[in-house]
């Protein structure tokens, strides 16, 4: 659920940035704002796709969902940190906060134990 929420957020942000780009007058050297918006749009696409895939994997209780979700969080956070280091746009802070919470949640003992290799199979037998 949290992951779906994140996908929606990232898609909305990406869509907003996408609409801000003046595609006819693009010049990466001179129009910095346009370039940033394009970069944000491009950089958040993989995160959004991975997050969507991980959400689907979680729904089907597949172990690789955890890895996909973790990679997506790391990627989002890395993009946010890179954006922060260059442009400090306001929207990176909520994304960063959200990713931090998600990382702590994904790495918590209870979640890790469920998705540890061989664990889910065993658990299903016990149940």
């Amino acid at each position, binding site marked *: 659920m949290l992951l779906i929420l994140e996908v929606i957020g990232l898609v909305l942000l990406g869509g907003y940035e996408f609409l801000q780009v003046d595609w006819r007058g693009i010049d990466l050297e001179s129009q910095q704002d346009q370039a940033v918006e394009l970069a944000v749009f491009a950089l958040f696409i993989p995160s959004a796709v991975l997050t969507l895939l991980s959400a689907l994997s979680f729904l089907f209780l597949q172990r690789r969902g955890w*890895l996909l979700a*973790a*990679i997506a969080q790391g990627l989002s*956070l890395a993009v946010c940190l890179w954006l922060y280091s260059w442009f400090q746009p306001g929207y990176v802070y909520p994304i*960063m906060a959200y*990713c*931090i919470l998600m*990382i702590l949640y994904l*790495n*918590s003992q209870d979640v890790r134990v469920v998705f540890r290799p061989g664990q889910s199979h065993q658990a299903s037998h016990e149940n």
Partner: protein
Amino acid sequence: MKTESPGVEVKTALLRRFEPVIRSTTGDKFYPLDVEPYVRACSLWVQRPGEEAVCVVPGGELSLDRLAQQPMDEAGAVHFLKFTDTEDLGPNSRGGRLRMFRRRAKDRKESTRAFRAGRGRLARVGYFSRFVDALYSIALLARGRVPGESAAAASVAYERIMSEHENYRYHGRVLRQDGWVVLQYWLFYPFNDWRSGFFGANDHEADWEKVMVFLSESESGELRPEWVAYAAHNYTGDNLRRRWDDPEVEKVGEHPVIYVGAGSHASYYAPGEYLTELTLPLPSPLARVTRAIRTFWKTRLGQYVGDGEEDGGSGYFSIPFVDYARGDGLSVGEGGDKTWDEPRLISDPTPDWVSGYRGLWGLYARDPFEGEDAPAGPMYNRDKSVSRAWYGPVGWAGLDKVAPPTEMLEAILQQRADIVSRCGALRAEIDVKSRQLKKVGAELAAMRDRSHLDAPYKEGTRRVAELSGELDRLRGKLATDEAVSESLAEYSDRLRAGERDQARAHISRAHTPASEDELRVSRVAETWAAISVSLMLISFVGIAMFEREHLISMLVFSIAFFAFVEAGFRGRLVNLVSSANIGLAVVATLIIIYEFFWQLVVATVLVIGLYVLWDNLRELRR
């Protein structure tokens, strides 16, 4: 308590009855031989502090008797033998040099044909270990080392000895210790070519290895094998030892089978490829800080920290070496390709060549880590102290806490009798203290609410607490002793009924060969492991030279790339992603705190206030 009783014939017969079968690995060139022809082929040298090494007895003139005299001894002097001489490969002439290179090339060719290294020594360990491994190899240039042509020269000298008189011999010793009859099989190899021949840690002249069989003696005097212990590198204790009926101990009749590490000559119970890691511990303050962070992370934040051993426990990185003990080469002993010659007995009194010569049995390479220096004889360590395997073989194998079967029942009954008598004494003490406590309690009740007795009342209260604590401790001890006594009684009943302990209960960490999964490292992974460290360093240099404008971003990107590929090959992607995420989360948290410090303080206070309000209102509504 140690006595040596049986005669020479009896000892020899005992040794021969349980003599091991050794199975070596294809490509191995050296096998156990008698020390006498080896010593005859050696020269004796002395290295005195601050001086050049001096040859005391030239090659061909040395004997076991002369060796024991240890001439020119003084404080700090190191005596050593020299087995290999490049002149063995020809005189120091152009023709001689040519012969040496031909010999080395021939040896290398034969060795390559005979021995194929297993997959992925480097692919089985991480970047840091591989980097340290490279440094270790480079350090060999600066450290003392056995010269490159020594293995070839040793091979020539060994062939010469074997052509004069082919022999496969061990040196046997029989002794009694702590109720056990110990059979020691000392195997002497003329050369350890683990590094030059099998990608191992070291090369050195001479190699003493040992195998021990521990026998128990019945009341009728019958001897029965109970335990065996094989030496592997410098390991000692319980993990070396196996019970005779352990399925891991392979036997041919009554002869235990040893799988010998190629070049290293370490002894193993099962055939296979053993990953031996030289673990380097972190400095203790750093280790303490790391432990504290791990504890905080796990207990306070409820976060996952792996299985504990993933990062090496107390040692945080290791240099990997593989010991190939495949058992597909020459075998010596019962049912093998070669049979043992009559053993050389190390009887009582100890021969002079064992007790009198405290020097090294091969070249003294002056290696500060000692890996390239030859070992001392069976009785001594390199520092000339008496070795534990010699004076206390029972303790060396961790058997000092185990009574032989014939003494076990007696030991249990004695221990139980001791505990029962201790319980009696404890009960008497408890009785006395209990009466004392009641009297003080009565005194205290009488003094209560009387202001002029405040001081003795306080003292009485303290005394009651003290006596109460003591009684509590004594009762706890009594309960434990009674439980132990009961457990000893049950254990003795089980033994009387003929039941035995589990054969492997004493083993905490068995040395096991690499599994099929570990060996199934793909060719690509292996190639990656071989080139990745160099590739990474070269890419760093490239970035520093050509991408100075984006130095940090490019370095981060390249490190991330290498780490990601590496983790993928080693199946550690989950660990890498979690670690990277945690690092990123920490940085992001710091940024958020830095940017919104006061807002966060206000929000925290607000949240706490609202929570308290909600909690109190909820209580009001009940």
